[in-house]
C-alpha cells in the first residue's frame, strides 16, 4: 500500500496522499509540511463523511475534486477504502488520474490488500454519527437519511 502512495506522492505538486479505511485506519506515506497526523485524520474523516452522504444520494464509487484558493483535494472513494490526495493548484490532473488509476487497479488486484479490506465491516455511513459532528450538520444528516 505504501508503495502505491509513494508513487502518487512522487508526482510534481502532490503534497501527500493517504488511504483511509472504513474502520478508521489511516495509512499515509509522509506528512506534508504544516500538517500533523491528527489534522490528516480529521481531513480523512471529513472526506469519508462526505462520501457517506454522497452514498445516500447515489450508492456507488465516488470521485471528489475540491479546489481551494491555495490547494486541491482529490478523493477516490471505493466500497471499503478511500484515497485522499492533497495537492498544489499546479498539479497535473491528468498525470495524477493516470497514476491513481494504476494504483487503484493494483490495489484491487492485490490479494493481501483485498484480504485486509474484506474483514472490514464498517461502511462510510459508520462515520455519520451524532458524536462525530456539530448539531447543525447532524440535523442535515437526519434529513438526508
Amino acid at each position, binding site marked *: 500500500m505504501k508503495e502505491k502512495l509513494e508513487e502518487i506522492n512522487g508526482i510534481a505538486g502532490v503534497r501527500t496522499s493517504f488511504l483511509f479505511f472504513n474502520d478508521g485506519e489511516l495509512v499515509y506515506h509522509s506528512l506534508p509540511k504544516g500538517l500533523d497526523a491528527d489534522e490528516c485524520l480529521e481531513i480523512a474523516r471529513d472526506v469519508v463523511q462526505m462520501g457517506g452522504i454522497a452514498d445516500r444520494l447515489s450508492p*456507488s464509487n*465516488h470521485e*471528489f475534486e475540491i479546489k481551494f484558493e491555495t490547494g486541491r483535494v482529490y478523493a477516490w472513494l471505493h466500497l471499503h477504502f478511500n484515497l485522499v490526495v*492533497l495537492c498544489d493548484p499546479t498539479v497535473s490532473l491528468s498525470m495524477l488520474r493516470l497514476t491513481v488509476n494504476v494504483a487503484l487497479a493494483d490495489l484491487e488486484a492485490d490479494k493481501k490488500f483485498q484480504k485486509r479490506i474484506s474483514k472490514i465491516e464498517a461502511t462510510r455511513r459508520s462515520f455519520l454519527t451524532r458524536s462525530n459532528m456539530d448539531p*447543525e*450538520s447532524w440535523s442535515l444528516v437526519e434529513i*438526508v437519511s
Partner: protein
Amino acid sequence: MALVGNLKDLKLANIVQLNCMEKNESMFAVEHHKQVGRIYFAEGNIVHATYGSIEGEEAVFRILQIKEGPFRVESNVPPPKRTINAAWGNLLMEGLRMVDELREAKNAAMAKLSREIKNINGVNGVLVCNLFGEILMEEGIASGKRTSAAMAFLMRKIEKVGRASKMGNLKSAAFTAKNEKRVLCRWHEDVVEINIDPKLILEAVEQGLDKIGFSDIKPQA
C-alpha cells in the same frame, strides 16, 4: 431564568412584541454567521441594539433579517446605553418592510443566476439552498429536501476541510458518482449546486460561470 430557542421556531417579531408589551427589562441575543446580534428592552420599548460593530436602528434591521440561529432572552439585564428612541411598533413595521424588499431582490437575483447557469452548455439543472438545507431556488430539476440537505452538509464539510488543510476558501468542487456529476460552489451566504453532464470537466463549468459573471451577481440590489 433565560429563554433559549432558535429563530426558525420562534419569530423575532413575537419576541419583540412580548418583551415590549410586558415592559420587560431584558436582552435578546442571537448568533448568526459568527456575528452576535443583541436587542435590549426597557420601559416597554426597544432602547438599544448591536449587530457586530453596528448599533441602533440599523442593528435591529439587520437582526430582523436573521431567519435561523440559536437565541436567548435574559431577564433583568439593563441596557448599557440608549441608541433607539423610535416606538417599537414603528421600528418593527419598518424593519419587516425592509426584510420583504430584500427578500424580493434576492429572489430576483437567484432567478437570474439560475437561468444563466442553466444556459451553460452541459448543465442540466441548478439548485440554490442555504447552509441549513432550505431550498431557495430550483431550475431544471426537482432536487427535493434530501438533496438540498446533502448539499448543505457537503458545503459545511468542504469548508472544514479547507480550514484543516490550510488551503483557504473554496473556489469550486465536483462530485462524480455513477451517471451523475454535481458542481458545488458558494454564492455569498448560500450554496449553488449545478447538475452537469458527467463528461463535462469542472474547468468548463468554471469558465461558463466566469462568462455569466457569477461572482458579480449579488443577492441584494
